[in-house]
């Protein structure tokens, strides 16, 4: 064949760059510039300097909000795990048809907008809603308010984020070779020890994937905590939104945003080094 070998390396070098260039320029203009602007605002508005960061990192309100954010994200992750692991296990043990039906439900929940699911919890837990109605029917005189509390926002976030956890764990469980379990049983591993020494380590990658994903999404969650949570126990994203919308405190909001971003990137960075980011959402 008459390929000119001398021109090949050149063509190969320029092509990928030409194909990538439009997107790279676009992301630079409409993703990186606004992101950098947040960083700039955090040190220039209103006073040039690090005063905003000093306030965000040492002020008692901000510390409380960040601790609350971390605590909530951790709680939601653990709950998602407690809820997701048994369901994924159920799916991998029932018949194929039943597993498909459950998978359909999970996928449906996954594709239903965050807002719709948040609203659904508002209906369920509202003062005239079915849960309170059920409690009253059962004879509980003064049911405690459920809505606009830490409880309602945490519950809704677990519901919203559980599909991420379930799908990650289920994918791993599906791939487990049943002969591994059988051989472990034949060597005398049963019940708890089979789970601890064989099943749990085999499903660990799914647990890691799901947990990182849920934790990171939860850290930056805006919609659900703002709509369902207690105004006195805000999470970081909600407070950032407040600074911008109500107080027009762009510097302070930006400094909080940068702290949130750095924490998120550190977690994802550690994950990336260990497993590779593209695996996370695959």
């Amino acid at each position, binding site marked *: 064949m008459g390929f000119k070998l001398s021109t090949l390396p050149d063509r*190969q070098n320029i*092509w*990928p*760059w030409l*194909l*990538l260039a439009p*997107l790279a320029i*676009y*992301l630079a203009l*409409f*993703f990186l510039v*606004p*992101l950098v*602007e*947040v960083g700039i605002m955090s040190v220039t508005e209103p006073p040039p300097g690090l005063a905003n960061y000093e306030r965000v990192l040492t002020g008692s309100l901000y510390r409380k909000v960040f601790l609350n954010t971390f605590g909530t994200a951790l709680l939601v992750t653990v709950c998602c795990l407690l809820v*997701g692991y*048994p*369901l994924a*296990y*159920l799916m991998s*043990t029932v018949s194929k048809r039943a597993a498909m039906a459950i998978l359909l*439900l*999970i*996928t449906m*929940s996954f*594709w*239903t*907008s965050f*807002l*719709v*699911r948040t609203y*659904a919890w*508002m209906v*369920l837990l509202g003062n*005239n*809603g*079915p849960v309170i*109605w059920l409690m009253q029917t059962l004879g509980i005189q003064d049911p405690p308010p459920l809505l606009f509390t830490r409880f309602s926002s945490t519950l809704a976030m677990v*519901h919203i984020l559980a*599909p991420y956890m379930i799908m990650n764990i289920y994918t791993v469980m599906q791939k487990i070779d049943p002969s591994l379990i059988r051989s472990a049983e034949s060597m005398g591993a049963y019940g708890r020890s089979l*789970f601890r020494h064989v099943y749990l380590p085999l499903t660990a990658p799914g647990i890691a994937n799901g947990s990182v994903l849920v934790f*990171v999404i939860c850290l*930056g969650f*805006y*919609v659900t905590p*703002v*709509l369902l949570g207690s105004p006195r126990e805000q999470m970081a*994203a909600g407070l*950032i*939104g407040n600074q*911008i*919308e109500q107080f027009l405190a762009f510097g302070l*909001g930006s400094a909080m*945003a940068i702290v949130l*971003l750095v924490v998120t*990137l550190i977690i*994802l960075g550690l994950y990336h080094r260990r497993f590779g*980011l*593209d695996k996370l*959402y695959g």
Partner: protein
Amino acid sequence: MNTFIRWIGIAVVAFIAAPLLIVVPMSFSTAASLQFPPPGWGWQYYQAYFSDPSWLRPTWNSVFIAAMNTLLTMALVVPATFALVRHKFWGKSAANLMMMMPMAVPHIVMAIGYYSYFGELKLVHSKLGVILAHTCLSVPITFLVLSANLKGFDRTLERAARSLGATPRQVFLHITLPILRPGLLISALFAFIQSFDETVVAIFISGRNAETLPRKMFDSIREEADPVIAVISTLLFAIVFAGLIAPSVIKLIRRMTAKTAQQR
């Protein structure tokens, strides 16, 4: 132990399903606010939604913005994905990371950035601004879906066409594109849904002129909890359900028509 885990699993199924199902009866309620059990049944909130411009305008805005976002995202991401999957070059892993970055940054952070940046560019409160912002946020998921498809592509088909005398252009149009079409459609769908569902950035930059449906829903839930939201939730839910069910229904119909054809 096993049965215990199973029972928990079944309880979780109920936990996942209940909130999805509750909005459907609520949308047919006649109550002026959230009330369970509903005092009566009717279509009134469906009529309210389909006759109220303050709900229809955001719906249309969202469809328009999501469609434009899909076109722009695909125009940018498709060539870039070809470069990243099919070529080896210096800086490739950095480019890969660049594609994923918008997924790693919390949306509230980007919302502040766009609020101030688009303010300077006079793009705040405009559909163009929302489209430009959403396109950045749609890049990672579109890229992930498309690159998974492209990695599974059997390149011997292209080489075969080439050896039979097709030009690179012909190969691309008649071999590569048709085979890749399902992957392209699915990644475009992901881009569309990403934009259609995006709430946080839209809350901060869409304003009254480019108000999207999620923004309108967010405001409405925060202020008055208008029962029309139950209608929209039911409709959105029905669309998702139809979309998920559609492939198996089509398969079933095909199988049945094939059977009747055989019987003849």
